[in-house]
């Protein structure tokens, strides 16, 4: 469903992605792990057309992702994104945040969008916060609103860009639980994360990225439990034993 073929991307003279290829099938959950600066987030942003790439090709169900083409807004309605810093619209309530896309992009009727947004917020455990502005919500609650906002577009896939990295530790669980529910319903997901527990439990496949290339990939039990590449071993060791 999502095809990434030999992507290259540079910021000026700095090449951050050096030929990355992978494929995500419908209903699959792929976790991308790796040290910061390895190009994980950049790849996600390329898939959603928030970032351009210089070489290679990305396509969503055969439609090419080209940031310079008009079709990009259409592709973005099919692939939603959840950001590290939530990026809710601060001047709109939780409910309005979720309704915004359906009403103004998809032209769904207000009444219908409202019902659905309320149902989605209920599903992520925020049924009592419909009229609350983002500033009055905790980080975990804001991120759950952001997930509801992504779901409201009925996307074919959702990209998660380190969705729990900006959260206080005690709020991480509530967001991961919602993500696990979303995955269980068969949503196609690409998740950039440092939450190895989540990757182990939910991912169908894990990609380990370093220095702009995929160093190792496979099912989580292989990559996370029994990594073959020394760089993967080193990275996981440092994550699990940060004090050493």
């Amino acid at each position, binding site marked *: 469903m999502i095809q990434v073929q030999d992507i290259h991307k540079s910021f000026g003279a700095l090449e951050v992605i050096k030929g990355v290829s992978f494929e995500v099938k419908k209903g699959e959950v792929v976790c991308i792990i790796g040290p910061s600066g390895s190009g994980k987030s950049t790849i996600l942003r390329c898939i959603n057309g928030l970032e351009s790439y210089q070489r290679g090709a990305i396509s969503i169900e055969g439609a090419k992702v080209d940031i310079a083409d008009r079709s990009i807004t259409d592709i973005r309605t099919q692939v939603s994104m959840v950001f590290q810093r939530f990026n809710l619209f601060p*001047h709109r309530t939780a409910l309005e945040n979720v309704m915004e896309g359906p009403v103004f992009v998809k032209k769904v009727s207000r009444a219908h969008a409202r019902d659905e947004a309320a149902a989605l917020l209920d599903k992520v455990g925020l049924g009592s916060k419909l009229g609350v502005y983002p500033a009055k919500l905790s980080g975990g609650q804001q991120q759950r609103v952001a997930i509801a906002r992504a779901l409201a577009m009925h996307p074919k896939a959702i990209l998660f860009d380190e969705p729990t990295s900006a959260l206080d530790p005690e709020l991480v669980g509530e967001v991961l639980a919602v993500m696990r529910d979303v995955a269980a319903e068969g949503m196609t997901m690409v998740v950039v994360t440092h939450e190895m527990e989540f990757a182990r439990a939910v991912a169908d496949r894990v990609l380990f990225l370093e220095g702009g290339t995929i160093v190792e990939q496979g099912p989580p039990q292989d990559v996370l439990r029994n990594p073959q590449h020394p760089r993967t071993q080193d990275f996981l060791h440092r994550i699990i034993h940060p004090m050493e």
Partner: protein
Amino acid sequence: MGFWGRAADYLPLLMEGVWLTLVITFFSVVLSTLLGFVWAVMAWTRIPVLVAISRGFVMIIRGIPIIVQLFYIYFVMPEIGINLTAMQAGIIGLGVAYSAYQAENFRAGIDAIDKGQIEAAHSIGMTDQLVMRRVILPQAIRIVLPPFGNTIIMILKDSSLVSTITVAELTRQGQLIAASTFDNMTVFTLVALIYLALSLPLTFLTRHLEKRYSQP
């Protein structure tokens, strides 16, 4: 006759000037707002030609005194076949000159919106136009409003510059009365008080709006 007696004599003539001052201010505010918004959006598009035009325009206009711009429009334009009444020249002159300041103000408001929100809006398929209308403008307006109020007050006061191209607005009327009565003290005290009376309500209105829009 005391101050108030003489003031009562001059007031009807001055009020004719007040009317023109208000007309000039109103239309200059409208024109500068519309044009300023256009410059700001041009700069925001990141399309190099549009950005260059917008930047260049703002730079040139801000570097030339408004009074010289007014002279240029009123005295030089006719030589290339563009004849404007003094009123038209005044409104266009002030409107264009202030559009440069308004543009800077709007640009600051637009730039203040967190880039993450704009990305989030793009990620749910919003076009740039929709992002502007639904995400940027509703928030930018709160940031832009207080300086916008100040700009209106400055346009009101600078409308007195239009007196130099023969428009009989408040300042010009004052000059005419003073020239024929030699009663400078009374006339210009009145003129100053009238400007103050016009600008104070605007100051209070700006403060009120500032307070109202400071909540989410």
